[in-house]
């Protein structure tokens, strides 16, 4: 994609839209968000199987379809738009990227990625201890060697996405001062997964604690790069949600009459929707550009935080405006707006709010980084 999506990409997007329209209407989202699991295993299998979503960004050599970051971003955007409840972000994006970016050999990667790609297993990625941004953590989770590839993990990880459904938990902590990826099987002793009461019930998260839990060392990993990957996909998911909110606000204001005229004819409302469109288009540019950066493997740290902060502001604004333009009804449970609004609020802080990403993106600019190093 050089600024424009190709015809194939556009067709791909449309097929995704059809799938989610059919399998993830808000009635289904509402049903699933009240369950402990949080998604429908049948639909997920279907998505992995017929649509191949779980394998989309996994290299062909590991059984995936080997599409690029642009296609994967399209998937995320459409999932964000439909609020499709699934382990996609946790298993495919987070855990899949971690395996793929790790120093593991081909055999090890294949072992995990092929099963993630086929949907045979669900994996989760446990990184966060305290800080919003992964790269800012000083990990205290301890890895004690048992033999060459086996370790005992002791510590706690928080906000692990889809851990409730995971067959394997991938854990990142330091080993000899290097970020290292470990794999813990669901039934390992000393592993405790406890579900969190989260603001956004469409995305389940858990706290995981490890008490001398056996773990296999997968390999070392560049945490900043992993973080950039996840930020970019998350951001693309977010603009999908923002688009849905904008569409909903437009549809509603066109239908609604007060004082004898469509409220969409009031200039104040027209101008606000125009501004929201601008904000969204700007954020889309930032997110698409970031996906392209991944594809080109260029400036991904800067672009990822740029995308996240743009998506943060656009999604939150879209949520607030959509509620406001619906009036009282927009604040009710019955109205769907809050489902996306809560996703917006949660996504805003996931991997850092705008302030944190602002700082990160500036430090990714070499001239800035070198001046600040000199100054400190």
């Amino acid at each position, binding site marked *: 994609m050089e600024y424009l999506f190709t015809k194939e990409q556009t067709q791909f997007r449309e097929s995704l839209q059809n799938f989610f329209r059919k399998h993830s209407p808000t009635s289904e989202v509402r049903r699933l968000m009240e369950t402990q699991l949080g998604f429908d295993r049948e639909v997920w299998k279907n998505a992995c199987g017929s649509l191949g979503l779980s394998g989309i960004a996994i290299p062909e050599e590991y059984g995936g379809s080997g599409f690029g970051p642009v296609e994967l971003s399209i998937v995320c955007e459409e999932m964000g738009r439909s609020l499709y409840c699934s382990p996609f972000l946790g298993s495919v994006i987070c855990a899949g990227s971690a395996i793929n970016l790790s120093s593991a050999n081909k055999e090890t990667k294949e072992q995990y990625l092929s099963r993630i790609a086929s949907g045979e297993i669900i994996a989760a990625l446990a990184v*966060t201890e*305290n*800080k*919003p941004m992964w790269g800012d953590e000083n990990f205290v989770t301890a890895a004690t060697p048992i033999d060459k590839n086996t370790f005992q993990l002791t510590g706690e990880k*928080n*906000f692990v996405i889809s851990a409730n459904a995971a067959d394997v938990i991938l854990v990142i902590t330091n080993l000899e001062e290097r970020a290292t990826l470990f794999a813990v099987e669901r039934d390992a002793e000393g592993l405790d997964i406890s579900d*969190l*009461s*989260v*603001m*956004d019930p469409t995305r389940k*998260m858990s706290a995981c604690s490890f008490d001398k839990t056996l773990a296999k060392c997968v390999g070392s990993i560049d945490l900043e790069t992993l973080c950039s990957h996840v930020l970019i996909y998350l951001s693309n998911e977010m603009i999908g949600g923002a688009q849905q909110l904008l569409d909903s606000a437009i549809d509603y204001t066109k*239908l*609604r*009459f*007060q*004082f*004898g*005229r*469509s409220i969409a004819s*009031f200039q*104040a*409302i027209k101008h606000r929707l125009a501004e929201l469109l601008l904000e969204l288009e700007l954020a889309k540019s930032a997110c698409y550009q970031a996906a392209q950066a991944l594809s080109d493997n260029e400036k991904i740290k800067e672009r990822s935080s740029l995308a996240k902060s743009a998506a943060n502001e656009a999604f939150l604004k879209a*949520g*607030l405006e959509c*509620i*406001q333009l619906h*009036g*009282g*009804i*927009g*604040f*009710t*449970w*019955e*109205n*769907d*707006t*809050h489902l996306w*609004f*809560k996703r917006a*609020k*949660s996504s*805003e*802080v*996931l991997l850092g*709010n705008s*302030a*944190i990403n*602002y*700082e990160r993106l500036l430090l990714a600019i070499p001239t800035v980084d070198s001046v600040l190093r000199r100054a400190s």
Partner: protein
Amino acid sequence: MNDFSELRKEVSSWINANWDPSLDLITWRKKLADSGWGAPDWPKEDFGMGLSPEESSIIEEEFSKKGVIGAAQSGVRLLAAVTILEHGTREQKDRYLKPILTGEENWCQLFSEPGSGSDLAGATTRADLIGDEWIINGQKVWNTSAHHADFGLLVARTNWDVPKHEGISYFIIDMRQKEVEVRQLRQMNGHASFNEVFFTDARVSRENILGTEGRGWQVAMTTLAYERRSFDRARRVSSDMAGDASIYREYEMELEKANEPYKWYPQRAGRGDLVLETAIETGAIENAAIRQEIARFHVLNESAKWTAARAKAAQKAGQPQGPEGSLGKLAASRVAQSAARVHTSIMGNGALLTGEGSLKDGILAEVLVSTPAISIAGGTDEIQKNIIAERVLGLPKEPRFDSGPFRDVQKNADKSST
């Protein structure tokens, strides 16, 4: 200056002679209503004493000092009372006023509709006179007490062929009839403070119109004017009176029930009071970027408080309360939204959580999903800006499109609002 010492003496001696905490709540209040001391600013012939508001507040003070329970005030009962006092017939006053004061009968306000939030006069709930009864069909929404109300203050359209303000009538409706269905409406923050009310051939007997047919808008203005004036007061009632007698427990339950819908309102306002505290507790204060946000919020919050104080002082000094209230409402809306944003920054990952176990016992999470309401409830920010522009700044009004017969005014295609 009158220090009202005579009046104080008089109320004091009446209390000494009559107050008896061993009575049950209703019995005590019946006595109170009959004496006139329960509503001293009401006319003498209507359970009052014809005193001024100032004298009335002296009496309230004395009641409060002595821990004496006064007439029932919760909910919209006093809105009902002032409206009936001003527009009611002798029979209506005799029938309804006393049980309002005693708390025996509860009221609700049935003004807003799904299709007319900001545009009250655009009501489409209809009342048709058939024989000696008005037959009501339609839907109301956004009232807080319909689910335990005995009577409702209902605005409905009785004439579709005149301009919208002229075709409305005002009714007292019996809420206990099966043709009235009340459904609680859950909000996005999980609370259920409001009701939807559906009327399917509900009945109002002919004598229960308030005012005359087609003059309901003027009657509604009485209710709304009092609502604006008394908003603070109605919320302020709290049990700061000591006492073990069961009458106090009855009283507290009454208050609790009445305040139930409002318990998240502090969160709706943003809980700016918790900003600095949380920032210090979480250590977020050490982050220079977050400090900027906190300070920016602090400036807004302090400025808004002082602006409110200035408006109040102006009002006290006898300058009439005008549309300046809209400025305060708009400021409150900004404060709440800004608070939610700065809380989010301070909370960090904590904002992913909700419920009792989350930061500040879940209060902050509730802030995040409650503040969007403040710029809508009680007149949207957009309506406030119109008021400020037209009535404070004197800018021209928008052209109107709803001045002809209401039948011809463009309305929502269907009444379902989602």
